[in-house]
Protein backbone atom coordinates (compact mmCIF):
# COMPACT_ATOMS: atom_id res chain seq x y z
CA UNK A 1 0.00 0.00 0.00
CA UNK A 2 1.22 3.47 -0.82
CA UNK A 3 2.19 5.63 2.14
CA UNK A 4 -0.30 8.43 1.54
CA UNK A 5 1.07 10.58 4.36
CA UNK A 6 4.61 10.36 3.03
CA UNK A 7 3.51 11.17 -0.50
CA UNK A 8 1.51 14.15 0.66
CA UNK A 9 4.47 15.40 2.67
CA UNK A 10 6.83 14.97 -0.29
CA UNK A 11 4.35 16.71 -2.58
CA UNK A 12 4.27 19.82 -0.40
CA UNK A 13 7.60 19.32 1.37
CA UNK A 14 8.50 23.02 1.46
CA UNK A 15 5.33 23.99 3.28
CA UNK A 16 5.62 21.00 5.57
CA UNK A 17 9.28 21.67 6.32
CA UNK A 18 8.74 25.35 7.12
CA UNK A 19 5.79 24.45 9.33
CA UNK A 20 8.01 21.89 11.06
CA UNK A 21 10.76 24.47 11.51
CA UNK A 22 8.31 26.92 13.06
CA UNK A 23 7.05 24.25 15.40
CA UNK A 24 10.66 23.23 16.06
CA UNK A 25 11.58 26.69 17.30
CA UNK A 26 8.74 26.47 19.80
CA UNK A 27 9.87 22.99 20.85
CA UNK A 28 13.42 24.36 21.06
CA UNK A 29 12.21 27.04 23.48
CA UNK A 30 10.48 24.33 25.53
CA UNK A 31 13.59 22.14 25.62
CA UNK A 32 15.66 25.17 26.60
CA UNK A 33 13.33 25.86 29.52
CA UNK A 34 13.82 22.29 30.66
CA UNK A 35 17.56 22.79 30.15
CA UNK A 36 17.51 25.93 32.30
CA UNK A 37 15.88 23.94 35.10
CA UNK A 38 18.40 21.13 34.71
CA UNK A 39 21.17 23.72 34.71
CA UNK A 40 19.91 25.11 38.02
CA UNK A 41 19.86 21.63 39.54
CA UNK A 42 23.32 20.96 38.14
CA UNK A 43 24.64 24.25 39.51
CA UNK A 44 23.51 23.15 42.94
CA UNK A 45 24.98 19.72 42.44
CA UNK A 46 28.40 20.96 41.29
CA UNK A 47 28.47 23.40 44.18
CA UNK A 48 28.11 20.45 46.55
CA UNK A 49 30.51 18.23 44.60
CA UNK A 50 33.17 20.88 44.13
CA UNK A 51 33.22 21.76 47.82
CA UNK A 52 34.73 18.33 48.48
CA UNK A 53 32.84 18.10 51.76
CA UNK A 54 30.82 15.32 53.33
CA UNK A 55 29.35 17.55 56.05
CA UNK A 56 28.54 21.26 56.27
CA UNK A 57 28.73 22.67 59.79
CA UNK A 58 26.84 25.94 60.09
CA UNK A 59 25.28 28.31 62.60
CA UNK A 60 22.66 26.58 64.71
CA UNK A 61 19.13 26.70 63.30
CA UNK A 62 20.10 28.01 59.86
CA UNK A 63 20.02 26.48 56.39
CA UNK A 64 23.49 27.92 55.67
CA UNK A 65 25.82 28.49 54.12
CA UNK A 66 24.16 28.67 50.66
CA UNK A 67 20.45 29.04 51.37
CA UNK A 68 20.63 31.24 54.50
CA UNK A 69 23.27 33.41 56.21
CA UNK A 70 25.40 31.50 58.69
CA UNK A 71 28.14 32.85 60.90
CA UNK A 72 30.36 30.74 63.16
CA UNK A 73 33.72 31.34 64.79
CA UNK A 74 36.72 30.40 62.71
CA UNK A 75 38.20 28.23 65.43
CA UNK A 76 35.24 25.87 65.60
CA UNK A 77 37.08 23.54 63.27
CA UNK A 78 39.55 22.62 66.02
CA UNK A 79 36.91 20.88 68.07
CA UNK A 80 35.41 19.17 65.04
CA UNK A 81 38.76 17.92 63.74
CA UNK A 82 39.23 15.73 66.77
CA UNK A 83 35.87 13.99 66.51
CA UNK A 84 35.70 10.34 65.44
CA UNK A 85 35.14 9.90 61.70
CA UNK A 86 36.46 13.34 60.74
CA UNK A 87 39.39 13.22 58.30
CA UNK A 88 39.80 16.88 57.46
CA UNK A 89 38.12 20.23 57.97
CA UNK A 90 38.24 23.54 56.18
CA UNK A 91 36.78 26.94 56.99
CA UNK A 92 34.94 28.61 54.17
CA UNK A 93 33.39 32.03 53.66
CA UNK A 94 30.98 32.82 50.83
CA UNK A 95 29.94 36.21 49.57
CA UNK A 96 28.22 37.19 46.34
CA UNK A 97 29.25 40.57 44.95
CA UNK A 98 28.93 42.62 41.80
CA UNK A 99 32.41 42.86 40.31
CA UNK A 100 33.34 45.52 37.79
CA UNK A 101 36.22 44.53 35.57
CA UNK A 102 37.44 45.52 32.11
CA UNK A 103 34.45 47.72 31.56
CA UNK A 104 31.83 45.14 32.35
CA UNK A 105 30.02 44.02 35.47
CA UNK A 106 29.87 40.39 36.53
CA UNK A 107 28.09 38.86 39.46
CA UNK A 108 30.54 36.57 41.21
CA UNK A 109 30.67 34.50 44.36
CA UNK A 110 33.79 35.16 46.44
CA UNK A 111 34.88 32.01 48.25
CA UNK A 112 37.36 32.24 51.08
CA UNK A 113 39.37 29.06 51.53
CA UNK A 114 42.24 28.02 53.73
CA UNK A 115 45.40 27.98 51.66
CA UNK A 116 47.84 26.50 54.11
CA UNK A 117 47.76 23.21 52.20
CA UNK A 118 46.17 22.10 48.94
CA UNK A 119 43.00 19.99 48.70
CA UNK A 120 41.48 21.32 51.87
CA UNK A 121 37.68 21.01 51.68
CA UNK A 122 36.39 24.07 49.87
CA UNK A 123 39.27 24.47 47.45
CA UNK A 124 38.61 23.82 43.74
CA UNK A 125 39.17 20.08 43.12
CA UNK A 126 41.12 20.74 39.91
CA UNK A 127 42.40 23.68 37.89
CA UNK A 128 41.98 24.25 34.18
CA UNK A 129 45.09 26.42 34.14
CA UNK A 130 47.62 28.00 36.53
CA UNK A 131 48.38 26.94 40.08
CA UNK A 132 46.77 26.86 43.52
CA UNK A 133 46.87 29.88 45.83
CA UNK A 134 50.21 29.81 47.63
CA UNK A 135 50.30 33.18 49.37
CA UNK A 136 48.16 34.17 52.30
CA UNK A 137 46.87 37.32 50.61
CA UNK A 138 45.85 38.85 47.29
CA UNK A 139 45.98 35.81 45.06
CA UNK A 140 42.87 34.42 43.42
CA UNK A 141 41.61 31.46 41.42
CA UNK A 142 38.79 32.46 39.09
CA UNK A 143 36.23 30.41 37.23
CA UNK A 144 36.62 30.74 33.45
CA UNK A 145 33.12 32.23 33.21
CA UNK A 146 34.35 35.38 34.97
CA UNK A 147 36.28 36.17 31.82
CA UNK A 148 39.46 36.70 33.84
CA UNK A 149 42.82 35.54 32.45
CA UNK A 150 45.86 34.13 34.18
CA UNK A 151 48.10 36.85 35.58
CA UNK A 152 45.38 39.44 35.34
CA UNK A 153 44.81 41.73 38.30
CA UNK A 154 41.30 42.31 39.52
CA UNK A 155 40.04 44.70 42.18
CA UNK A 156 37.76 43.24 44.82
CA UNK A 157 36.61 45.82 47.35
CA UNK A 158 39.74 47.48 48.72
CA UNK A 159 42.46 45.26 47.27
CA UNK A 160 43.85 44.05 43.95
CA UNK A 161 44.16 40.31 43.45
CA UNK A 162 46.32 38.46 40.96
CA UNK A 163 44.64 35.59 39.15
CA UNK A 164 47.03 32.65 39.60
CA UNK A 165 44.69 29.84 38.57
CA UNK A 166 41.61 29.21 36.45
CA UNK A 167 38.88 26.78 37.45
CA UNK A 168 36.09 25.33 35.34
CA UNK A 169 32.40 24.94 36.24
CA UNK A 170 32.91 26.33 39.74
CA UNK A 171 29.64 28.16 40.24
CA UNK A 172 27.25 29.13 42.99
CA UNK A 173 23.77 27.65 43.23
CA UNK A 174 22.61 30.66 41.20
CA UNK A 175 25.13 29.90 38.48
CA UNK A 176 27.40 32.83 39.34
CA UNK A 177 31.08 32.04 38.70
CA UNK A 178 33.33 31.75 41.75
CA UNK A 179 36.52 33.56 42.65
CA UNK A 180 38.56 31.80 45.34
CA UNK A 181 40.67 33.97 47.62
CA UNK A 182 42.53 33.26 50.88
CA UNK A 183 40.18 32.96 53.86
CA UNK A 184 41.58 36.01 55.66
CA UNK A 185 40.93 38.18 52.61
CA UNK A 186 37.40 36.79 52.26
CA UNK A 187 36.71 37.51 55.94
CA UNK A 188 37.88 41.05 55.41
CA UNK A 189 35.76 41.44 52.29
CA UNK A 190 32.75 39.96 54.02
CA UNK A 191 32.84 41.27 57.57
CA UNK A 192 35.09 44.32 57.79
CA UNK A 193 33.67 47.80 57.71
CA UNK A 194 35.00 50.72 55.73
CA UNK A 195 37.36 53.27 57.30
CA UNK A 196 34.67 55.86 58.06
CA UNK A 197 32.58 53.25 59.81
CA UNK A 198 35.60 52.16 61.85
CA UNK A 199 36.39 55.73 62.93
CA UNK A 200 32.77 56.25 63.93
CA UNK A 201 32.71 52.94 65.80
CA UNK A 202 35.90 53.80 67.67
CA UNK A 203 34.44 57.13 68.71
CA UNK A 204 31.27 55.45 69.92
CA UNK A 205 33.26 52.85 71.85
CA UNK A 206 35.45 55.56 73.42
CA UNK A 207 32.32 57.45 74.45
CA UNK A 208 30.94 54.34 76.13
CA UNK A 209 31.90 54.43 79.85
CA UNK A 210 31.72 50.64 80.02
CA UNK A 211 34.74 50.36 77.70
CA UNK A 212 36.57 53.55 78.68
CA UNK A 213 36.87 53.08 82.41
CA UNK A 214 39.51 54.77 84.47
CA UNK A 215 41.81 52.30 86.13
CA UNK A 216 41.39 49.60 83.48
CA UNK A 217 44.25 50.21 81.07
CA UNK A 218 44.03 48.53 77.66
CA UNK A 219 40.29 47.82 77.80
CA UNK A 220 39.36 50.49 75.28
CA UNK A 221 42.12 49.40 72.87
CA UNK A 222 41.02 45.78 73.16
CA UNK A 223 37.42 46.65 72.46
CA UNK A 224 38.36 48.84 69.50
CA UNK A 225 40.72 46.15 68.15
CA UNK A 226 37.96 43.57 68.20
CA UNK A 227 35.89 45.74 65.91
CA UNK A 228 38.60 45.91 63.24
CA UNK A 229 39.03 42.20 62.70
CA UNK A 230 36.71 39.37 61.96
CA UNK A 231 37.02 35.88 63.33
CA UNK A 232 33.92 34.49 61.67
CA UNK A 233 33.35 32.15 58.75
CA UNK A 234 30.16 30.85 57.15
CA UNK A 235 30.76 27.16 57.44
CA UNK A 236 33.22 24.48 58.34
CA UNK A 237 33.47 21.93 55.58
CA UNK A 238 34.15 18.45 56.90
CA UNK A 239 35.62 15.54 54.99
CA UNK A 240 35.03 12.16 56.64
CA UNK A 241 37.26 9.16 56.89
CA UNK A 242 36.35 6.29 54.54
CA UNK A 243 33.55 4.21 56.02
CA UNK A 244 32.39 6.85 58.48
CA UNK A 245 28.63 7.30 58.73
CA UNK A 246 27.85 10.93 57.80
CA UNK A 247 24.61 11.01 59.77
CA UNK A 248 26.31 9.67 62.90
CA UNK A 249 29.11 12.25 62.73
CA UNK A 250 26.62 15.03 61.97
CA UNK A 251 24.48 14.14 64.98
CA UNK A 252 27.57 14.13 67.21
CA UNK A 253 28.45 17.62 65.99
CA UNK A 254 24.87 18.80 66.53
CA UNK A 255 24.84 17.32 70.02
CA UNK A 256 28.22 18.41 71.35
CA UNK A 257 29.10 21.53 69.41
CA UNK A 258 25.70 23.24 69.50
CA UNK A 259 25.91 23.73 65.77
CA UNK A 260 23.89 22.51 62.84
CA UNK A 261 25.52 19.94 60.55
CA UNK A 262 24.17 18.83 57.22
CA UNK A 263 25.04 15.69 55.34
CA UNK A 264 25.43 15.66 51.57
CA UNK A 265 21.89 14.31 51.10
CA UNK A 266 20.47 17.03 53.35
CA UNK A 267 22.47 19.72 51.55
CA UNK A 268 21.19 18.45 48.18
CA UNK A 269 17.69 18.68 49.58
CA UNK A 270 18.31 22.27 50.70
CA UNK A 271 19.88 23.38 47.43
CA UNK A 272 17.65 21.52 45.00
CA UNK A 273 14.33 21.00 46.73
CA UNK A 274 14.22 24.20 48.81
CA UNK A 275 16.44 26.85 47.22
CA UNK A 276 15.23 26.42 43.67
CA UNK A 277 11.75 25.15 44.48
CA UNK A 278 10.00 28.36 43.42
CA UNK A 279 12.07 28.67 40.26
CA UNK A 280 11.37 25.03 39.48
CA UNK A 281 7.63 25.59 39.86
CA UNK A 282 7.91 28.71 37.69
CA UNK A 283 9.70 26.77 34.96
CA UNK A 284 7.28 23.88 35.39
CA UNK A 285 4.39 26.28 34.75
CA UNK A 286 6.15 27.58 31.64
CA UNK A 287 6.71 24.04 30.42
CA UNK A 288 3.05 23.17 30.90
CA UNK A 289 1.96 26.33 29.07
CA UNK A 290 4.44 25.70 26.25
CA UNK A 291 3.22 22.11 25.97
CA UNK A 292 -0.37 23.33 25.72
CA UNK A 293 0.61 25.98 23.15
CA UNK A 294 2.54 23.36 21.17
CA UNK A 295 -0.44 21.01 21.26
CA UNK A 296 -2.79 23.79 20.16
CA UNK A 297 -0.49 24.81 17.31
CA UNK A 298 0.01 21.23 16.11
CA UNK A 299 -3.74 20.62 16.33
CA UNK A 300 -4.43 23.80 14.36
CA UNK A 301 -1.82 23.00 11.70
CA UNK A 302 -2.96 19.41 11.23
CA UNK A 303 -6.61 20.45 11.28
CA UNK A 304 -5.97 23.10 8.62
CA UNK A 305 -3.93 20.68 6.53
CA UNK A 306 -6.77 18.16 6.75
CA UNK A 307 -9.46 20.66 5.83
CA UNK A 308 -7.39 21.62 2.78
CA UNK A 309 -7.77 18.00 1.64
CA UNK A 310 -11.52 17.65 2.09
CA UNK A 311 -12.09 16.79 -1.57
CA UNK A 312 -9.26 14.26 -1.67
CA UNK A 313 -10.48 12.63 1.52
CA UNK A 314 -14.04 12.49 0.15
CA UNK A 315 -12.72 10.84 -3.02
CA UNK A 316 -10.66 8.38 -0.95
CA UNK A 317 -13.74 7.46 1.04
CA UNK A 318 -15.85 7.21 -2.08
CA UNK A 319 -13.44 4.82 -3.76
CA UNK A 320 -13.43 2.66 -0.68
CA UNK A 321 -10.50 3.75 1.50
CA UNK A 322 -11.02 2.54 5.06
CA UNK A 323 -11.24 5.01 7.93
CA UNK A 324 -8.03 3.60 9.37
CA UNK A 325 -6.15 4.53 6.16
CA UNK A 326 -7.41 8.10 6.33
CA UNK A 327 -6.82 8.33 10.09
CA UNK A 328 -3.39 6.77 9.61
CA UNK A 329 -2.50 9.35 6.97
CA UNK A 330 -3.39 12.24 9.29
CA UNK A 331 -1.73 10.65 12.31
CA UNK A 332 1.48 9.96 10.38
CA UNK A 333 1.57 13.55 9.15
CA UNK A 334 1.12 14.83 12.69
CA UNK A 335 3.89 12.54 13.91
CA UNK A 336 6.07 13.58 10.95
CA UNK A 337 5.53 17.20 11.84
CA UNK A 338 6.38 16.44 15.45
CA UNK A 339 9.52 14.55 14.39
CA UNK A 340 10.79 17.43 12.24
CA UNK A 341 9.80 19.87 14.97
CA UNK A 342 11.66 17.88 17.59
CA UNK A 343 14.81 17.60 15.46
CA UNK A 344 14.79 21.33 14.73
CA UNK A 345 13.99 22.08 18.37
CA UNK A 346 16.78 19.88 19.73
CA UNK A 347 19.33 21.32 17.31
CA UNK A 348 18.28 24.92 17.97
CA UNK A 349 18.29 24.39 21.75
CA UNK A 350 21.81 22.98 21.41
CA UNK A 351 22.87 25.98 19.37
CA UNK A 352 21.41 28.78 21.43
CA UNK A 353 21.77 27.07 24.83
CA UNK A 354 25.43 28.10 25.34
CA UNK A 355 24.53 31.73 24.60
CA UNK A 356 22.29 31.85 27.67
CA UNK A 357 23.83 33.65 30.63
CA UNK A 358 22.93 30.76 32.92
CA UNK A 359 23.94 27.17 32.43
CA UNK A 360 21.56 25.26 30.15
CA UNK A 361 21.93 21.53 30.57
CA UNK A 362 20.27 19.44 27.86
CA UNK A 363 20.22 15.89 29.15
CA UNK A 364 19.77 12.98 26.72
CA UNK A 365 17.11 11.55 29.05
CA UNK A 366 15.20 14.86 28.85
CA UNK A 367 15.54 14.83 25.08
CA UNK A 368 14.09 11.31 24.94
CA UNK A 369 11.27 12.29 27.31
CA UNK A 370 10.71 15.45 25.23
CA UNK A 371 10.56 13.38 22.06
CA UNK A 372 7.98 11.03 23.57
CA UNK A 373 5.93 13.96 24.86
CA UNK A 374 6.08 15.79 21.51
CA UNK A 375 4.97 12.66 19.69
CA UNK A 376 2.17 12.09 22.21
CA UNK A 377 1.05 15.71 21.87
CA UNK A 378 1.08 15.40 18.07
CA UNK A 379 -0.90 12.16 18.22
CA UNK A 380 -3.45 13.75 20.55
CA UNK A 381 -3.61 16.93 18.50
CA UNK A 382 -4.28 14.91 15.34
CA UNK A 383 -7.46 13.51 16.89
CA UNK A 384 -9.37 16.70 16.07
CA UNK A 385 -8.32 16.49 12.44
CA UNK A 386 -9.04 12.75 12.28
CA UNK A 387 -12.49 13.36 13.71
CA UNK A 388 -13.12 16.05 11.09
CA UNK A 389 -11.80 13.81 8.31
CA UNK A 390 -13.95 10.86 9.32
CA UNK A 391 -16.99 13.13 9.32
CA UNK A 392 -16.41 14.09 5.66
CA UNK A 393 -19.22 12.74 3.53
CA UNK A 394 -17.99 10.76 0.51
CA UNK A 395 -20.94 12.27 -1.35
CA UNK A 396 -18.99 15.56 -1.36
CA UNK A 397 -16.87 14.03 -4.12
CA UNK A 398 -19.95 13.67 -6.29
CA UNK A 399 -21.32 17.10 -5.49
CA UNK A 400 -24.90 18.00 -6.35
Amino acid at each position, binding site marked *: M*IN*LAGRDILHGWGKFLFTGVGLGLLIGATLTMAGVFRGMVDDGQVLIDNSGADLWVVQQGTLGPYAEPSSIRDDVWRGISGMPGVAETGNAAYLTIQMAHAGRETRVMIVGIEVDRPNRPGAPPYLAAGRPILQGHYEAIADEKTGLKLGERVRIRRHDYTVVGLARRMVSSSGDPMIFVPLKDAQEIQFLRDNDALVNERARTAANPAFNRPGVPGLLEAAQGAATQSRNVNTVLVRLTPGADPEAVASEIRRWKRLTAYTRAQMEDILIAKLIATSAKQIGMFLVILAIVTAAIVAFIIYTMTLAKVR*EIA*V*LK*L*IGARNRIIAGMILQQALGLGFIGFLVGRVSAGLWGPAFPKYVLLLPADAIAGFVIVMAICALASLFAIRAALAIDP*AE*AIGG
Partner: protein
Amino acid sequence: MDRPDTPAIRLTGLKKRYGTGDAAVDALKGVDMTIWPGEVVGLVGPSGSGKTTLLKCLGAVIEPTGGHMELAGETIYDHGWKIPDLRALRRDRIGFVFQAPYLIPFLDVTDNVALLPMLAGKDNAAARRRALELLTALDVAHRARAQVSQLSGGEQQRVAIARSLANHAPIILADEPTAPLDSERALTVIRILNEMAVQYQTAIIVVTHDEKIIPTFKRIYHIRDGKTHEEAGEGRAI
Protein backbone atom coordinates in the same frame (compact mmCIF):
# COMPACT_ATOMS: atom_id res chain seq x y z
CA MET B 1 -23.14 -9.50 -29.71
CA ASP B 2 -25.49 -11.57 -27.54
CA ARG B 3 -26.85 -9.86 -24.49
CA PRO B 4 -25.69 -11.48 -21.20
CA ASP B 5 -28.33 -13.15 -19.02
CA THR B 6 -27.78 -10.94 -16.01
CA PRO B 7 -28.01 -7.17 -16.16
CA ALA B 8 -25.20 -5.15 -14.61
CA ILE B 9 -27.74 -2.89 -12.88
CA ARG B 10 -31.41 -3.44 -12.26
CA LEU B 11 -33.47 -0.89 -10.37
CA THR B 12 -37.10 -1.52 -9.55
CA GLY B 13 -39.24 1.20 -8.02
CA LEU B 14 -36.25 2.90 -6.41
CA LYS B 15 -37.29 5.79 -4.16
CA LYS B 16 -35.49 8.46 -2.23
CA ARG B 17 -37.15 10.91 0.11
CA TYR B 18 -35.27 13.74 1.83
CA GLY B 19 -36.65 15.04 5.12
CA THR B 20 -39.84 14.08 6.90
CA GLY B 21 -43.38 15.35 7.34
CA ASP B 22 -44.32 18.55 5.55
CA ALA B 23 -40.68 19.21 4.67
CA ALA B 24 -40.28 15.88 2.90
CA VAL B 25 -39.11 15.98 -0.69
CA ASP B 26 -39.40 12.94 -2.94
CA ALA B 27 -36.31 13.13 -5.12
CA LEU B 28 -36.87 9.68 -6.66
CA LYS B 29 -40.42 8.43 -7.00
CA GLY B 30 -39.91 4.88 -8.21
CA VAL B 31 -37.13 4.59 -10.72
CA ASP B 32 -36.94 1.56 -12.95
CA MET B 33 -33.75 0.99 -14.88
CA THR B 34 -31.92 -1.95 -16.43
CA ILE B 35 -28.42 -1.65 -17.83
CA TRP B 36 -26.47 -4.47 -19.38
CA PRO B 37 -22.76 -5.21 -19.24
CA GLY B 38 -20.83 -3.49 -22.03
CA GLU B 39 -23.47 -0.79 -22.42
CA VAL B 40 -23.02 2.98 -22.15
CA VAL B 41 -26.29 4.62 -21.19
CA GLY B 42 -27.07 8.31 -20.93
CA LEU B 43 -28.97 9.73 -17.98
CA VAL B 44 -30.29 13.16 -18.84
CA GLY B 45 -32.65 15.56 -17.21
CA PRO B 46 -32.96 19.15 -16.05
CA SER B 47 -31.41 20.43 -12.88
CA GLY B 48 -33.18 19.22 -9.77
CA SER B 49 -34.72 16.27 -11.58
CA GLY B 50 -32.97 13.72 -9.36
CA LYS B 51 -29.96 12.76 -11.50
CA THR B 52 -27.35 13.25 -8.79
CA THR B 53 -29.59 11.60 -6.18
CA LEU B 54 -29.95 8.56 -8.43
CA LEU B 55 -26.18 8.51 -8.95
CA LYS B 56 -25.57 8.69 -5.20
CA CYS B 57 -28.02 5.84 -4.58
CA LEU B 58 -26.38 3.76 -7.29
CA GLY B 59 -22.99 4.55 -5.80
CA ALA B 60 -24.12 3.42 -2.34
CA VAL B 61 -23.27 6.87 -1.04
CA ILE B 62 -26.79 7.61 0.20
CA GLU B 63 -29.44 5.11 1.17
CA PRO B 64 -32.64 4.92 -0.87
CA THR B 65 -35.93 4.92 1.03
CA GLY B 66 -37.60 2.21 -0.97
CA GLY B 67 -37.44 -0.12 -3.95
CA HIS B 68 -34.99 -2.71 -5.09
CA MET B 69 -31.49 -2.52 -6.49
CA GLU B 70 -29.36 -5.29 -7.98
CA LEU B 71 -25.76 -5.21 -9.13
CA ALA B 72 -24.70 -8.04 -11.43
CA GLY B 73 -27.60 -10.16 -10.22
CA GLU B 74 -26.96 -9.61 -6.51
CA THR B 75 -29.49 -7.70 -4.48
CA ILE B 76 -27.70 -4.91 -2.72
CA TYR B 77 -30.76 -2.93 -1.66
CA ASP B 78 -34.27 -4.08 -0.93
CA HIS B 79 -35.92 -1.67 1.47
CA GLY B 80 -32.59 -1.61 3.25
CA TRP B 81 -28.96 -2.35 2.40
CA LYS B 82 -28.30 -6.03 1.92
CA ILE B 83 -24.53 -5.57 1.85
CA PRO B 84 -22.87 -4.82 5.21
CA ASP B 85 -19.70 -3.21 3.83
CA LEU B 86 -20.70 -0.43 1.47
CA ARG B 87 -17.13 0.88 1.24
CA ALA B 88 -15.94 -2.46 -0.08
CA LEU B 89 -18.88 -2.45 -2.48
CA ARG B 90 -17.86 0.94 -3.84
CA ARG B 91 -14.20 -0.03 -3.95
CA ASP B 92 -14.62 -3.37 -5.71
CA ARG B 93 -17.75 -3.07 -7.82
CA ILE B 94 -18.42 0.55 -8.65
CA GLY B 95 -16.18 2.92 -10.57
CA PHE B 96 -16.62 6.69 -10.39
CA VAL B 97 -15.75 9.35 -12.92
CA PHE B 98 -16.51 12.89 -11.86
CA GLN B 99 -17.08 16.19 -13.62
CA ALA B 100 -13.64 17.23 -12.46
CA PRO B 101 -11.17 14.36 -12.40
CA TYR B 102 -10.55 14.66 -8.63
CA LEU B 103 -7.29 12.81 -8.84
CA ILE B 104 -5.19 12.69 -5.70
CA PRO B 105 -2.73 15.55 -6.27
CA PHE B 106 0.07 14.09 -4.16
CA LEU B 107 0.19 10.82 -6.11
CA ASP B 108 1.62 10.43 -9.59
CA VAL B 109 -0.50 9.17 -12.48
CA THR B 110 0.32 5.49 -12.00
CA ASP B 111 -0.34 5.52 -8.29
CA ASN B 112 -3.62 7.39 -8.74
CA VAL B 113 -4.80 4.42 -10.77
CA ALA B 114 -3.00 1.77 -8.71
CA LEU B 115 -4.42 3.11 -5.46
CA LEU B 116 -7.76 1.36 -5.97
CA PRO B 117 -6.36 -2.17 -6.38
CA MET B 118 -4.02 -1.46 -3.48
CA LEU B 119 -6.98 -0.47 -1.31
CA ALA B 120 -8.54 -3.77 -2.33
CA GLY B 121 -5.51 -5.59 -0.98
CA LYS B 122 -3.49 -6.22 -4.15
CA ASP B 123 0.27 -5.98 -3.77
CA ASN B 124 1.92 -2.84 -5.09
CA ALA B 125 3.58 -4.46 -8.10
CA ALA B 126 0.38 -6.11 -9.31
CA ALA B 127 -1.58 -2.91 -8.76
CA ARG B 128 0.94 -0.89 -10.75
CA ARG B 129 0.93 -3.45 -13.56
CA ARG B 130 -2.85 -3.14 -13.75
CA ALA B 131 -2.54 0.66 -13.72
CA LEU B 132 -0.03 0.63 -16.59
CA GLU B 133 -2.22 -1.73 -18.56
CA LEU B 134 -5.15 0.68 -18.25
CA LEU B 135 -3.03 3.75 -18.90
CA THR B 136 -1.75 2.09 -22.06
CA ALA B 137 -5.29 1.24 -23.13
CA LEU B 138 -6.27 4.86 -22.53
CA ASP B 139 -3.21 6.16 -24.35
CA VAL B 140 -1.71 8.04 -21.36
CA ALA B 141 1.01 5.52 -20.46
CA HIS B 142 3.64 8.05 -21.55
CA ARG B 143 2.57 10.24 -18.59
CA ALA B 144 2.68 7.36 -16.12
CA ARG B 145 5.26 8.99 -13.81
CA ALA B 146 3.96 12.52 -14.24
CA GLN B 147 2.36 14.48 -11.45
CA VAL B 148 -1.34 15.16 -11.81
CA SER B 149 -0.72 18.90 -12.07
CA GLN B 150 1.41 18.31 -15.18
CA LEU B 151 -1.47 16.76 -17.15
CA SER B 152 -3.95 18.46 -19.45
CA GLY B 153 -7.66 18.33 -18.59
CA GLY B 154 -8.25 15.57 -21.16
CA GLU B 155 -5.35 13.53 -19.84
CA GLN B 156 -6.60 13.91 -16.29
CA GLN B 157 -10.02 12.68 -17.31
CA ARG B 158 -8.48 9.63 -18.99
CA VAL B 159 -6.55 8.87 -15.83
CA ALA B 160 -9.80 9.18 -13.86
CA ILE B 161 -11.43 6.70 -16.24
CA ALA B 162 -8.46 4.35 -15.79
CA ARG B 163 -8.89 4.62 -12.04
CA SER B 164 -12.59 3.77 -12.28
CA LEU B 165 -11.69 0.61 -14.19
CA ALA B 166 -8.80 -0.43 -11.99
CA ASN B 167 -10.72 -2.93 -9.88
CA HIS B 168 -12.68 -4.47 -12.80
CA ALA B 169 -15.84 -2.80 -11.52
CA PRO B 170 -18.92 -4.07 -13.37
CA ILE B 171 -20.46 -0.58 -13.35
CA ILE B 172 -19.07 2.90 -13.76
CA LEU B 173 -20.97 6.00 -12.75
CA ALA B 174 -19.83 9.02 -14.72
CA ASP B 175 -21.13 12.35 -13.49
CA GLU B 176 -20.86 14.98 -16.25
CA PRO B 177 -17.46 13.63 -17.32
CA THR B 178 -17.24 15.91 -20.36
CA ALA B 179 -18.42 19.13 -18.79
CA PRO B 180 -15.04 20.86 -18.59
CA LEU B 181 -13.89 19.65 -22.02
CA ASP B 182 -14.23 21.09 -25.51
CA SER B 183 -16.27 19.20 -28.13
CA GLU B 184 -13.39 17.24 -29.54
CA ARG B 185 -12.10 16.12 -26.17
CA ALA B 186 -15.62 15.42 -24.92
CA LEU B 187 -16.28 13.09 -27.82
CA THR B 188 -12.91 11.45 -27.27
CA VAL B 189 -13.84 10.71 -23.64
CA ILE B 190 -17.18 9.19 -24.75
CA ARG B 191 -15.40 7.13 -27.36
CA ILE B 192 -12.99 5.86 -24.73
CA LEU B 193 -15.87 5.03 -22.37
CA ASN B 194 -17.57 3.07 -25.15
CA GLU B 195 -14.37 1.20 -25.93
CA MET B 196 -13.76 0.41 -22.29
CA ALA B 197 -17.36 -0.72 -21.81
CA VAL B 198 -16.96 -3.21 -24.63
CA GLN B 199 -13.43 -4.26 -23.73
CA TYR B 200 -14.11 -4.83 -20.03
CA GLN B 201 -17.84 -5.59 -20.27
CA THR B 202 -18.57 -2.72 -17.94
CA ALA B 203 -21.91 -0.99 -17.71
CA ILE B 204 -21.48 2.76 -17.77
CA ILE B 205 -24.06 5.35 -16.81
CA VAL B 206 -23.17 8.83 -18.03
CA VAL B 207 -25.05 11.68 -16.39
CA THR B 208 -24.91 14.61 -18.77
CA HIS B 209 -26.40 17.84 -20.01
CA ASP B 210 -23.98 17.93 -22.90
CA GLU B 211 -25.91 18.19 -26.18
CA LYS B 212 -22.79 17.22 -28.12
CA ILE B 213 -22.60 13.76 -26.62
CA ILE B 214 -26.28 12.87 -26.13
CA PRO B 215 -26.63 11.67 -29.74
CA THR B 216 -23.86 9.12 -29.17
CA PHE B 217 -25.88 7.02 -26.71
CA LYS B 218 -27.88 4.02 -27.94
CA ARG B 219 -30.14 4.20 -24.91
CA ILE B 220 -31.05 7.18 -22.85
CA TYR B 221 -32.90 7.45 -19.57
CA HIS B 222 -34.69 10.73 -19.13
CA ILE B 223 -35.35 11.68 -15.56
CA ARG B 224 -37.91 14.30 -14.60
CA ASP B 225 -39.57 14.90 -11.24
CA GLY B 226 -37.96 11.81 -9.79
CA LYS B 227 -39.18 9.38 -12.45
CA THR B 228 -37.38 7.91 -15.44
CA HIS B 229 -38.47 6.93 -18.84
CA GLU B 230 -36.32 5.15 -21.34
CA GLU B 231 -35.92 5.95 -24.99
CA ALA B 232 -33.69 4.76 -27.78
CA GLY B 233 -30.82 7.07 -28.65
CA GLU B 234 -29.29 7.81 -31.99
CA GLY B 235 -26.17 5.81 -31.23
CA ARG B 236 -24.23 8.09 -33.52
CA ALA B 237 -20.77 6.80 -34.35
CA ILE B 238 -17.88 8.89 -32.94
